[in-house]
């Protein structure tokens, strides 16, 4: 009897497993569904973030591409480019004779083609009036710290970030926001001239110090001494920072300190730094800072002179020692006579943000 009851009970318990299964299964399904939904939401969010970052990079690539194309031909009006990481389209609008507005749109496409990102730049291709008329042309900051500096010529500066100590300025000091940023020159043209003169200087060559640089402004002195445009200046093209220390003696020419701009549209700004004394017989154009520090305490026998003029983008800084920057109209005329064309200068950069086309 007992054995029979047990068998009957065992038969009845088979149904219980099914009921338990029905109770547990929906709970498991619910749990898994919630987990999958969380995971999917994370994946979608991270993919969207990745896509938008990709779109920004593509837009920046579009800006770089537009600069390359517009340097080749200023009549270029844009187009669409495909890369392995997505596409970018570039539109160029004319804003007057020398200005262009470039809008670059990054289109990743891989995850969601509707998500894009745009960047807008305004560029100019122009050498402004007064470019060759100044002892100092600085786009951004100006620091004249010395009590004993001497500037013979005009100073033109582009921002209010200035500090002018009680030295001597024999010329005008003009705030002109239009000088910011420093206008770009046709660096390929300058490189070609410098290369023909064997005056291209990289970091290795500059290890030789000031003695490797030309001693005079003139590559060929003027055939007519009364007309500086009949001479040819040394064009010293420097593909790195120009850093000189101690007694530099006399170095001469038109120093173009621009770094690797021919190969990299976003090349770092390159600085000219002279810590010492001697004479620069010529002019210096620097995409970064132009900083000179003559010996301090000031020693008149150890003066640092720049006899030509200076252009700099980031900052012109004159230290506490005896420093003399003198404008030379003859040298400027000779530089102008080289016929250097303007380069493409980026005046403004603006992030237009994401566009969700859906």
């Amino acid at each position, binding site marked *: 009897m007992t054995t029979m009851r047990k068998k009957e009970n065992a038969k009845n318990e088979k149904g219980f497993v099914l009921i338990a299964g029905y109770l547990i299964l929906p709970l498991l399904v619910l749990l898994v569904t919630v987990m999958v939904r969380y995971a999917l939401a994370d994946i979608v969010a991270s993919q969207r973030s990745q896509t938008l970052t990709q779109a920004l990079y593509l837009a920046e690539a579009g800006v770089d591409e537009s600069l390359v194309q517009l340097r080749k031909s200023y009549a270029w009006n844009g187009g669409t480019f495909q890369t392995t990481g997505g596409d970018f389209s570039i539109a160029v609008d004319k804003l007057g004779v020398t200005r262009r507005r470039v809008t670059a749109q990054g289109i990743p496409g891989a995850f969601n083609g509707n998500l894009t990102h745009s960047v807008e730049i305004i560029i100019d291709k122009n050498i402004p009036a007064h470019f060759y008329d100044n002892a100092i042309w600085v786009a951004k900051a100006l620091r004249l710290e010395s009590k004993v500096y001497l500037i013979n010529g005009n100073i033109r500066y582009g921002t209010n*970030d200035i500090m002018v100590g009680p030295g001597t300025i024999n010329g005008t000091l003009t705030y002109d*926001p239009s000088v910011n940023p420093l206008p770009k020159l046709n660096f390929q043209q300058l490189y070609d001239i410098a290369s023909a003169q064997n005056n291209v200087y990289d970091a290795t060559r500059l290890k030789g110090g000031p003695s490797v640089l030309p001693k005079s402004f003139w590559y060929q002195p003027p055939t007519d001494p009364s007309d500086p445009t009949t001479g040819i200046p040394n064009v010293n093209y420097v593909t790195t920072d120009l850093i000189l220390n101690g007694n530099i003696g006399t170095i001469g020419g038109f120093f173009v300190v621009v770094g690797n701009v021919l190969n990299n549209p976003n090349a770092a700004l390159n600085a000219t730094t002279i810590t010492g004394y001697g004479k620069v017989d010529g002019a210096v154009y620097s995409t970064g800072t132009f900083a000179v520090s003559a010996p301090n305490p000031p020693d008149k026998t150890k003066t640092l002179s720049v006899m030509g003029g200076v252009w700099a983008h980031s900052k012109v800084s004159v230290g506490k020692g005896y420093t003399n920057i003198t404008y030379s109209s003859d040298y400027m005329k000779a530089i102008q006579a080289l016929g250097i064309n303007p380069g493409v200068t980026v005046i403004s950069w603006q992030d237009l943000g994401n566009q969700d086309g859906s």
Partner: protein
Amino acid sequence: MDGSSNGFTLMEILVATAIMAGIGGVFFSTLRMNQQSWESAQSHLAVSGELRRGMNEMSREIVASESTQVDIPADGAWYPSINFPVPQDLDGDGTVLNGAGVLEWSDPITYTLNGTQVIRRQNNTNDRVVANGVTDLEFRREVASPDIVEMQMTVREATGTGDFPSTGTITTRVRLRN
């Protein structure tokens, strides 16, 4: 024989209970470890997410400014907040340049730490929270590279029970484009 199949001896119950207790202990300690690991991972994710979100938002805006417009000096020192404008079409002519071809600038934007929140402020009125759980926020510019702003942010986050707080620091360098 029948009697013995109807129940368990005390010894059998004790042994079975001990085995069950052992298995249960291992099971719950594993569960607890998994929970801790989950909380720790959640905390790490929350920290890195907050760091990434905050830095992205700040750098996307700072990048459009200009070296002379940023208020922190280029002296290599760290500063707790930053003020800067961005280009803005103020005269409504469709470009960010004025008639003289000079950039037009917005009112200054501030990023600063308020308690444990990074706040974006403009015109002293529009406060917006950029990141939470922030214990440190600093900005600096080096003398040699005034056009590069370095930002450092530390986030401390405690999720779940709060037993497994996570701390993360991120440093980003942004080149000013204007």
